């Protein structure tokens, strides 16, 4: 089965690149400031400000990918397969700081983000994705696994489109690659395989 990457977004400390080219950041260090990126991308999503940083970067990458265009699939035929290294560790550590014996005020708003796959849930809410989903944690991106698992879902006719990628954030370092996988291609589409994901991740 031929699958294609029809859109992608790479967001890292080096900047933001998408299938439409680089996103011009007025300041070099803007990539470290999710709220500045929110303003730059002219988002209007109040829930954004309640999210932890991993989720904020996930939504920002999603916005670069989809550009507010409604997805042309029903919710249940869209899958989401993501992976990351640190999961929610950055938020876990912040939450831990609210648990000090001499200053014990656990933050509920932080607590709800202390799971690796919450970022996947936020993306599902934002883009109305209700199909198959998987979030794995690994030291480095395992693009073979992501490609094989995604392809299997397409072959089993469980999904007709899929948001796939690596989404990681820890200690101010965002490291994200999101790709949109479909069975149809356009002139700019790339084959969905290990080599493509590896080359887009660089």
């Amino acid at each position, binding site marked *: 089965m031929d699958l294609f990457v029809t859109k992608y977004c790479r967001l890292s400390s080096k900047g933001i690149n998408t299938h439409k080219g680089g996103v011009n950041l007025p300041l070099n260090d803007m990539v470290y400031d999710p*709220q500045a990126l929110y303003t730059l991308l002219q988002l209007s999503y*109040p829930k954004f*400000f*309640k999210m932890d940083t991993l989720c904020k970067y996930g939504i920002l990458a999603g916005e670069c990918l989809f550009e507010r265009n409604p997805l042309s699939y029903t919710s249940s035929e869209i899958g989401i397969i993501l992976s990351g290294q640190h999961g929610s560790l950055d938020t876990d550590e912040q939450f831990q700081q609210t648990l000090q014996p001499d200053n014990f*005020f*656990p*933050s*509920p*708003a932080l607590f*709800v983000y202390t799971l690796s796959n919450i970022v996947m849930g936020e993306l599902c809410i934002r883009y109305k994705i209700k199909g198959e989903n998987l979030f794995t944690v690994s030291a480095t991106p395992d693009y073979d696994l992501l490609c094989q698992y995604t392809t299997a879902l397409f072959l089993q006719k469980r999904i007709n489109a899929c948001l796939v990628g690596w989404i990681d954030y820890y200690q101010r370092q965002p490291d994200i690659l999101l790709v949109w996988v479909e069975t149809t291609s356009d002139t700019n589409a790339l084959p969905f395989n290990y080599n493509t994901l590896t080359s887009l991740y660089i």
Partner: protein
Amino acid sequence: MNNLIEELKNDIIEQLNLQDMTPADIDENAPLFGEGLGLDSIDALELIVLLQKKYKTKVNNADEGKEVFKSVRSIAEFIQAKQTANS
């Protein structure tokens, strides 16, 4: 009471990350949940933490919480009543 209400408005904006909102945008008599500010259940828990941490004031049960968290003014009245009782 008015000073406490203003202080609470600032606390709520900061604690709940209500972006682009100023104290003047918050009606102290308007409902906090559902309509009005449209806060959710996690926000309610954050408000409980705020009262405990900054104002050393504890909401004792869910029924009391429903009354306390009706509006900014009702929170201010609750804090003031507790502080008066403890002084």
